[in-house]
């Protein structure tokens, strides 16, 4: 059976430290932001948002929400819109892949993505002199004018497959394929694995009663779920829920 890689992120454990964002950038050769970069023009495949319950001081509560490509399974919004097949879903892994070499930079996929998980290279990538020696050899830097996004550390999947092939195995050892954000999370808030494997932790957690997915009513079947025991955090899933939660809170 083909794999369906997915993630579960425990929002009760996330401290918003930013390790995932930084480890992702190191792993995937995402360049530092040039002068004048903002949170609207930067590239953060894994971005941590701070969400709050909408109340004022002192009733405010907030939570950190790491958001990356949700690897939508159905009607994957970015796949169907791309005019030249630069976005593809790998049937073997369920991972939504981006082919930057084929992308013409029309940004239609970015407009179509409900999670704003796609980023555009507004600049050519630049590293301070000498720092390019520290780049990850498994991932090519992208040039300006193309879109990119999280691909569950494709370079690591590749390395795991090579290792399995060298050992004569058909399947990879799940321990060999761990995305950088999962590996770097100090509180182990992110669990990664094959959702098709009912014994995997990620499959179990995705069925947990604390589990929810963002914007699931759009019908795109994202493969990234979140966990929280706080009702208001779970109600962030979509606007209808958020409104109901607010009305309930006010009685």
């Amino acid at each position, binding site marked *: 059976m083909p794999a369906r890689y997915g993630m579960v992120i425990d929002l009760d454990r996330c401290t918003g430290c930013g390790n995932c964002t930084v480890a992702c950038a190191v792993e995937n050769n995402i360049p530092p932001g040039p002068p004048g970069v903002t949170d609207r023009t930067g590239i953060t495949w894994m971005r941590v948002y701070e969400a709050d319950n909408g109340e004022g001081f002192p009733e405010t509560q907030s939570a950190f929400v790491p958001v990356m490509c949700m690897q939508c399974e159905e009607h994957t919004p970015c796949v169907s819109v791309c*005019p*030249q097949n630069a976005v593809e879903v790998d049937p073997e892994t369920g991972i939504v892949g981006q082919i930057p070499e084929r992308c013409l930079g029309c940004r239609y996929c970015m407009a179509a993505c409900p*999670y704003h998980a796609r980023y555009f*290279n507004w*600049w050519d990538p630049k590293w301070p002199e000498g720092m390019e020696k520290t780049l990850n050899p498994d991932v090519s830097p992208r040039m300006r004018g*193309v879109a990119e996004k999280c691909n569950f550390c494709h370079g690591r999947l590749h390395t795991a497959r090579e290792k399995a092939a060298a050992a004569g195995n058909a399947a990879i050892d799940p321990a060999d394929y761990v995305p950088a954000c999962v590996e770097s999370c100090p509180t182990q808030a992110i669990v990664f694995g094959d959702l098709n494997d009912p014994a995997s932790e990620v499959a179990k957690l995705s069925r947990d009663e604390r589990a929810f997915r963002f914007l699931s*009513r759009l019908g795109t079947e994202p493969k990234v779920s979140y966990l929280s025991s706080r009702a208001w955090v779970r109600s962030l899933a979509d*606007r209808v*829920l958020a409104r109901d939660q607010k009305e309930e809170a006010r009685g």
Partner: protein
Amino acid sequence: MDSQWIPRGLQRTSFPRFLAWILPWAGLLAWGLFGAALCLIEGLNQTNMDNRFAFGLWIYLDLTIIAFGAGAFFTGFLLYLLRREALRPVINSAVVLGLICYSGAIIVLMVDVGQPLRAWFTFWHPNTHSMLTEVTFCLTCYLTVLLIEYVPVLLKNRQFRRIPKMLVFEFELHKLMPILAGVGAFLSFFHQGSLGGLYGVMQGRPFAFREAIGIWPTTFFLFILSAMAAGPSFLIVTTRLVESLTKKRLVDDRALRTLGRISGFMLAGYLALKAIDTLVWINATSPGAGFPAYEYYERASFGTWILFLEIGVFGVLPALLLLSRHTREHRGWLLTAAGLVLSGIALNRFVLTIQTLALPTLTFDPFLSYVPSWQEVATFTAVVAYGVLLYSLSYRYLPLFPQERELAQS
């Protein structure tokens, strides 16, 4: 000076005066090309677009001018295929305007994409499910059709007519016109529709997403209808504008009234469908996707007024003005109504491109705003200047308005 080139029997202003008119536009064109060059050389960081506002001024204006340029295909369709001879006086002008609008849009698109050198990949690795593929194919084909349609107009120039072979060529081309009009109409129906489909298929953007009829979202059909309403109105407005600039009568009122009636008819149909579509969207599509529709209109500048303005002032009002014979036959009212139609279509395109992107999806997302950079404005100005220049040259050297001579004599 250039009198040898000016169509026989037509009055044109002196060359220096013409030059004085041309030069400022040429200046704007140069400035705009400089802005566009910056975007091409330095990259799209020269614009104020960003990851959320992946589309900006350019796409909005592209959508708008392509709707305005619909006059070319629709007039051709009515004249050559449905034999509405009343429209013959405006057909040449319609072709030139169509050419300007479409080529302008494509020029801007080439600056807008991040890797223009890869634009041909769409033909190489086409994704047949993408509305943008449909748009790209139809636009390129239709632009070719428009260029061919422009040739006979061009060949009407006095100097070309001296060459007998050109006359034969022109004659042969004229026989082709109904076929070209048919092909153009077919292509145009599709790309006007797929431009609307671009937004209607965005499942992840419930503000734009619409239910599908067959394989197309409703915006596909709404865009076709609205473009058919906008095209004739654009012809009315431009013709009147040229008339007032040249202080001449170029087209008799009958042609423009016919255009007005067609525009009003199309607009009425469009509004009726749009009203149904909006009600379905507000009550079913959007809330079903987890988005209460009223929230869209709670954001800073985008209140429900925008919806009422689009449907009421820019929709129902001009439709009534154009459908009533009394107001349609009044030149002032006709022009006003046509202007309102164009405003409504422009507003509709604005709502679909800019408002869609400004509205947040995730519950913790902020509402964002966007102001284009000077490079974006300049690039677009270049296209406007290019349009004015091409139209001015065509007007001066080609018999764009067949009725001009007889109207001048009467």
